[in-house]
């Protein structure tokens, strides 16, 4: 059977590219302030739109790349949460939602994404590099959910906003490190297959 194209690691790298751009935009917003950032409509919609688009793009990943029920359910729930959080942020930019408590939608997306990573990665940490990175991604997202929660409680906190933005940069770095079959710290299970470049 011909494997699905592009290979899974390429999908991780393409997602990393979107996530990195998202992180840079959020960092820029922290430094210039939301007032300046939202002076142009396209800029105001950029990061919520990107977040929503990443959620939409998770559906083809669920359809074509999942190879077990738990894998498929995790990606499906993940896609829904990302779209929900993106939609909430779009509505906030549009002025339809006002309460800062809506930041909790992004916290739910972080937590849901983290749990999805942890649940669908059924191999141990040192099985191979992708297993290790899925565990790291999962726990990073679970820990980083504190930032959107802090933004809900203290919307003007620059620490919360900076932490939130840097989370995306860190996620991008981890996603770029992902490989299908490669050793991690010199370990690779003989069950993982032959490592390639």
């Amino acid at each position, binding site marked *: 059977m011909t494997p699905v*194209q*592009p*290979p899974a690691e*390429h999908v991780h*790298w*393409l997602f*990393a*590219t979107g996530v*990195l*751009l998202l992180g*840079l*935009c959020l*960092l*820029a917003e922290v*430094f*210039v302030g939301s*007032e*300046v*950032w939202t*002076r*142009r409509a396209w*800029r105001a919609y950029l990061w919520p739109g990107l977040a929503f688009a990443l959620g939409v793009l998770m559906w083809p990943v669920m359809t074509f790349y999942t190879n077990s029920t738990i894998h498929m359910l995790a990606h499906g729930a993940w896609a829904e949460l990302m779209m929900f959080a993106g939609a909430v942020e779009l509505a906030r930019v549009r002025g339809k939602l006002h309460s800062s408590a809506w930041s909790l939608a992004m916290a739910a997306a972080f937590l849901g994404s983290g749990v999805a990573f942890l649940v669908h990665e059924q191999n141990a940490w040192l099985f191979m590099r992708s297993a290790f990175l899925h565990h790291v991604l999962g726990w990073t997202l679970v820990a980083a959910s504190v930032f959107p929660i802090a933004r809900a409680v203290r919307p003007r906190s620059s620490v919360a906003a900076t932490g939130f933005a840097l989370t995306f940069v860190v996620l991008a770095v981890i996603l*770029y490190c992902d490989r299908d079959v490669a050793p991690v710290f010199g370990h690779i299970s003989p069950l993982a297959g032959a490592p390639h*470049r």
Partner: protein
Amino acid sequence: MNAELVSELELPRHRTARARFITALGPLTALAGAIWAIVQPYRITLLHPHGQGFWWLFVEPPLLVIAVGLFFYFAIVPGLLEDMGDARATSR
């Protein structure tokens, strides 16, 4: 009178530091991608394209990082700096 002059001088300097950071963000990202390409040249499939398929030639992580840095610098930063200047002018 002296205190007034000091406050007038400090505010723009503070804002300039922000503008410098924003301006540096894209090139620093691109630089990180370039350093990555030098440290791990095997991640650049274009350097040894023989026998590689479309996706291996199209998706090259260090080049993607450089592309994101350049996109941010050329597409997002100019308008942002302009708006920072406008905001400063209107707040005076």
